[in-house]
């Protein structure tokens, strides 16, 4: 399992990389790093999952790729632009080529479904309203929600809101899509439909997709490569098959859902629980 994954399944895959992260360190506080010397490369057109326990730095990595935060050391190159040294105005421009699906959709609650999906199109293009209407209808149809144009986000179920958010993030046909926990809180049908949609849209648009997820079964069906993170570093990587058969204890514990292993489930309390109940501590 080398650092540059050699996935052979996507025939139209080009040789260049959509994302290159090299020796990145980042922390919100100086003395508490969240990412420690992280390096990874993501090929254009591939679907990659970033996995790991809660709080291991997966979402922070997505925020670095989207340019919302900048690394303290190292470099982040996205779509052939080194965004670690780019001014914010240029990053904003580059983001027109990216899309992001947030964990809970993040739909604009004061706008209808139509206005949400049409938002990027209205902000970044001069397309006539009649054409925007057609594009919105196409995007909604792609996520199976054509006919919901006039509904407000409050009227949608969690799964529907996520699919509308997917349609919104796809409005400009981005080259790079980021999904933050796309499968969390979905019923089995919505979950399968979402996984199928991500796969279908990614292949149809030759789009690079990065999934931050905990869902092993659904993501293993669609991803080409997996980066496994623990405590702010990439501890393991490989194809779904390689990850399933790995002997890395942390990955095994995560994949098998075991309580005992390198990942601690219990908070490392300073006091002894039994003694605490006996009133040992004053």
């Amino acid at each position, binding site marked *: 399992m080398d650092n540059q994954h050699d996935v052979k399944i996507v025939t139209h895959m080009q040789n260049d990389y959509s994302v290159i992260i090299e020796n990145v360190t980042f922390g919100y506080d100086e003395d508490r790093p969240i990412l420690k010397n992280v390096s990874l490369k993501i090929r254009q057109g591939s679907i990659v999952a970033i996995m790991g326990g809660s709080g291991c730095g997966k979402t922070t990595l997505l925020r670095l790729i*989207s340019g*919302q935060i900048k690394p303290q050391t190292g470099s982040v190159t996205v779509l052939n632009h080194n965004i670690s040294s780019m001014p914010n105005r240029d990053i*904003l*421009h*580059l*983001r*027109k080529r*990216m899309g*992001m699906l*947030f*964990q*809970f959709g*993040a*739909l*604009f*609650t004061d706008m209808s479904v139509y206005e949400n999906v049409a*938002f*990027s199109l209205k*902000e*970044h293009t001069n397309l006539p309203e009649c054409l925007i209407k057609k594009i919105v209808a196409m995007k909604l149809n792609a996520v199976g929600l054509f006919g919901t144009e006039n509904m407000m986000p409050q009227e949608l179920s969690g799964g529907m809101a996520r699919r509308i958010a997917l349609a*919104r*993030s796809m409005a400009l046909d981005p080259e790079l899509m980021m999904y933050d926990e796309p499968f969390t809180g979905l019923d089995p049908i919505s979950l399968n439909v979402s996984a199928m949609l991500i796969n279908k849209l990614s292949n149809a648009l030759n789009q690079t997709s990065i999934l931050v997820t905990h869902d092993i079964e659904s993501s293993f069906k669609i991803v080409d490569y997996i980066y496994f993170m623990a405590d702010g570093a990439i501890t393991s990587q490989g194809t779904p098959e390689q990850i399933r058969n790995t002997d890395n204890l942390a990955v095994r514990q995560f994949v098998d859902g075991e309580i005992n292993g390198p990942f601690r489930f219990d908070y490392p309390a300073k006091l002894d629980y039994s003694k605490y109940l006996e009133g040992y501590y004053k």
Partner: protein
Amino acid sequence: MNKMIYIIATIGKPFADLILYAGGMLNLLIEIIFSLPYSILRLNLILKEIYFSGVKSIVIIAVSGWFVGMVLGLQGYNTLERFGSVTMLGSVAALSLLRELGPVLTAILFASRAGSGMTAEIGLMKATEQIEAMSVMAVSPIKRIVAPKFIGGIIAVPLLAALFNTAGIIGSYFVGVTLLRLDQGSFWSQMQDSVDLHYDVINGVIKSAVFGAVVTLIAVYQGFVAKPTAEGVSNATTKTVVSSALTVLALDFILTALMF
């Protein structure tokens, strides 16, 4: 020695916080000013903000103005009667409202009604990742959300102050002329004689526009720095109302000293 450090830290922290707060606001103001050329062209967004912060505040402003005017009429009549100058009531009411009460009370009411709403809206948008989503969609939240609110506030507050003044004058007329039988000719003619368009009315409008800008700036800043929790948003709305009221009153003193 430790006690000394503790005392210095205790005294210094509020000052340090105040400097950080002022610096944050100034930073936001500069960003807004740079966004104005883009946002001023988005008339639909500005009109939407004027509707939400201005039109929807009409009732509270008109009713408050009416009652303030009635109180002015009653107090003014009682006081002026002692000096045999009740005919000056129209002049007293108009000048009090145009120069001070109109701009100040409108700004405070605006902060309570619209300012707190702006803070809650931005705070909740932040909590539900809507601000982040907008930013990731390559749309600047300052240009799209904040600047239109700022322009809307500058336009809405002077208009609301004009409404407040009108309602107040009608209220004092109602008490002075209708209830206390003051001659209506004296009421209006004294008002006409003493009120100067540039000196009183225009200065009042300038004050209102400044208050509108300050209140909106405080409201959007508090929304942006609010902790993304229910308690955080609640605290931020309270801070908006309290900070706005204190800032408006302090600024009113400075503007009055400069203008009149």
